[in-house]
């Protein structure tokens, strides 16, 4: 199983942009008002820093995934315990994504379809893709779905130009303090920081050539897209309406009205959004199953699909309401990112450096 550089680029950006554009714009506007776009830039910078760190750690151990090198560095037992938070984080995240997706489809299109059917359908597809082709299939899928997603995003921004009013975004940096702008950047940053999955993914790259540029530019590209979405929501709705909308980007798409002719493009956007959600769930299904197989030292990682897929499904099913989804997002921001994306990679990095120093002497 191999991934090319451009597959890494598209995989990262596709899976990151879908949820960030959908869920992070309104909360950022709520805190930072019309300066929310600056928060997105800060969030992008934080995301880049995290990505750089995990890439650096991962590339010190070429061809090895997180579980493999952490066991090598920290020994069998500690190496295993350190991986546990990752499993929890990835399973919870996939469950959360699956549930948000199903809730949204239920709300907008299929209101008489039970939520669990929607979830079973997307899970079945994800198991199919992951089981048959592993990471290569996911990478190829993202290479196709990614550009479509981004073209659709840019198109919806362009079609909304007639609805924009510049004064909604003014005055810049005066109604909100820098603390608020910074505070608003933390939750989108936690979404960009999702890139700690690279600890696993980078083991599959076909060549190291320009891999730093490709990966970092992917995060930067995603952050720019989310920033543009924020700018557009602000320009069309203004900060006070924008913060009240649950899915502000979706409302933005629904406002499109060109010459009374181009309207109701929301259905198209939902389809494209499903691509991204599907890619994301498949990717996490793969990562969790593969790592769990390494952890248990099972030869065939595909066997673990039959544990991870039901686990994700049950987590999604057990989420009782919107409140829990918000709690999970807070958990992600306050605990998962500091632990899984910053502390553990830092420890692993230090261990690597120390071991190599010792070996030299």
């Amino acid at each position, binding site marked *: 199983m191999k991934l090319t550089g451009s597959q890494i680029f598209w995989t990262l950006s596709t899976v990151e942009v879908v949820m960030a554009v959908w869920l992070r714009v309104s909360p950022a506007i709520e805190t930072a008002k019309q300066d929310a776009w600056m928060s997105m830039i800060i969030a992008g910078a934080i995301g880049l820093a995290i990505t750089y760190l995990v890439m650096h750690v991962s590339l010190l151990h070429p061809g090895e995934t997180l579980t493999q090198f952490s066991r090598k560095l920290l020994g069998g037992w500690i190496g295993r315990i350190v991986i546990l938070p990752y499993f929890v984080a990835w399973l919870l995240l996939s469950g959360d994504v699956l549930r948000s997706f199903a809730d949204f489809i239920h709300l907008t299109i*299929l209101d008489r379809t039970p939520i669990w059917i929607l979830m079973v359908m997307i899970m079945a597809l994800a198991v199919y893709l992951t089981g048959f082709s592993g990471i290569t299939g996911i990478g190829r899928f993202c290479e196709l779905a990614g550009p479509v997603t981004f073209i659709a995003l840019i198109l919806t921004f362009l079609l909304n130009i007639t609805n924009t*009013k510049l004064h909604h975004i003014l005055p810049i940096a005066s109604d909100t303090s820098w603390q608020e702008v910074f505070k608003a950047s933390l939750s989108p940053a936690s979404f960009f920081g999702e890139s700690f999955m690279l600890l696993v993914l980078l083991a599959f790259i076909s060549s190291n050539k320009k891999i730093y540029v490709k990966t970092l530019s992917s995060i930067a590209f995603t952050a720019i897209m989310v920033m543009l979405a924020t700018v557009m929501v602000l320009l069309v709705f203004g900060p006070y309406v924008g913060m009240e909308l649950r899915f502000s980007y979706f409302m933005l798409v629904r406002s499109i009205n060109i010459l009374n002719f181009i309207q109701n493009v929301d259905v198209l956007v939902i389809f494209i959004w499903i691509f991204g959600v599907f890619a994301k769930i498949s990717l996490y299904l793969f990562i969790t199953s593969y790592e769990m197989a390494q952890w248990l030292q099972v030869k065939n990682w595909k066997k673990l699909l039959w544990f991870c897929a039901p686990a994700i499904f049950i987590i999604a099913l057990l989420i009782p309401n919107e409140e829990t989804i918000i709690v999970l997002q807070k958990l992600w921001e306050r605990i998962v990112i500091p632990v899984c994306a910053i502390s553990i990679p830092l420890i692993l990095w230090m261990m690597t450096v120390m071991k190599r120093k010792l070996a030299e002497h």
Partner: protein
Amino acid sequence: MKKILLIFCLMLLSASSTGCWNLKEPNQRAFIIGVGIDMTEDKELEISSEIAVPAGLGSSQVTGAGKKNTFTVVSAKGKDFMDAGQHMQAELSRSLFYAHRQTILIGQHMAEEGVDRYLDMVVRNPKSEIRSVVLVVKGGTAKEVIKAEPTFDPFISTTLGSQQNALGMKPYYFRMLLCDAYSEGTQPIVPAITADPARGYVYTGSAILNKDHGLKLVGFLDPEESMYDNWMMGKQKKLTFTTQIGKENKMISLAVQSLKHRTHIKMVKNKPQIYISLHGTGSIVENNSPLDPSKDDDLKTIQTRLSQEAEEKVRKLVDKAQHQYKIDIFGIGEHVHRQHPEVWKTLKPHWHETFPELPITVSVHLRYRDPGQTNSSL
């Protein structure tokens, strides 16, 4: 074995992904194309929906015995929007469908009571349409207007947006009402319409809603006043000026195409001074005076006279806003917020008291681009 399993899976997916159980045929739907919100005498909410009758549409035969109405109006009282919808459903054999609503009409009584309570459904309900235009019915109920038969289109609700376009305004969509209602300092100025037994419905200017007071109706502006107000707010695309000119008081008309507006706030000793300047260029479309626009002197006279006249009217409007309605209908608060955000923080809480005292200077500059096809008047 694997293949059979795969085929089975594919069949299951294709059967389920068509979403047939979620299917609703168009002939099971009652398409709401316009809605009127009224408040009855005994303070009850009354919703009137204009529903398309597809059987009356398709055929191009205007005469003939089989001619059906293109729409029907159903009204019902209720505790809120959807409760009334429930009551309306009792009269219909097809289920109500909100996604094609083109127009929201607000009756005068309703507007006086304040409409902020009923804004939520339009956005929250995922089956609702947010691209509807909003109008206030002056001196009547929304129910009367929505029943009117329009000249060109089969339904009144589709015509109201195009009428605003034809009048040179940008259509006022629900989204804009929402943005204004939640803005820092822009009062919603909603186009107004009135029911006329002889002519069906007529555009009658705009209604001023007070966003700081439950979106209650403050008063109306007549069509000319709303034209100037829209100009200042950037909502007008074109307009025609007519004024008396020369010794004989003959008429001259200028059709202005590109309208520009600028509001400058100058802070003098922490007190804002407002300078509004309006620019427009257009062509002379009618000239009954002896003046010849191709001559430089006459042209100057024409331009100055037109600008003066417009300036006078804007000044009157400003005076009306400051002393009669005592409400900032020009979005000046928003300009202060943008240009002097720090000062706005202290001004905002008592902007309603500050506004009538503000020194507002208006200047209008009208220029001609095209004298028309004749030199002096024929």
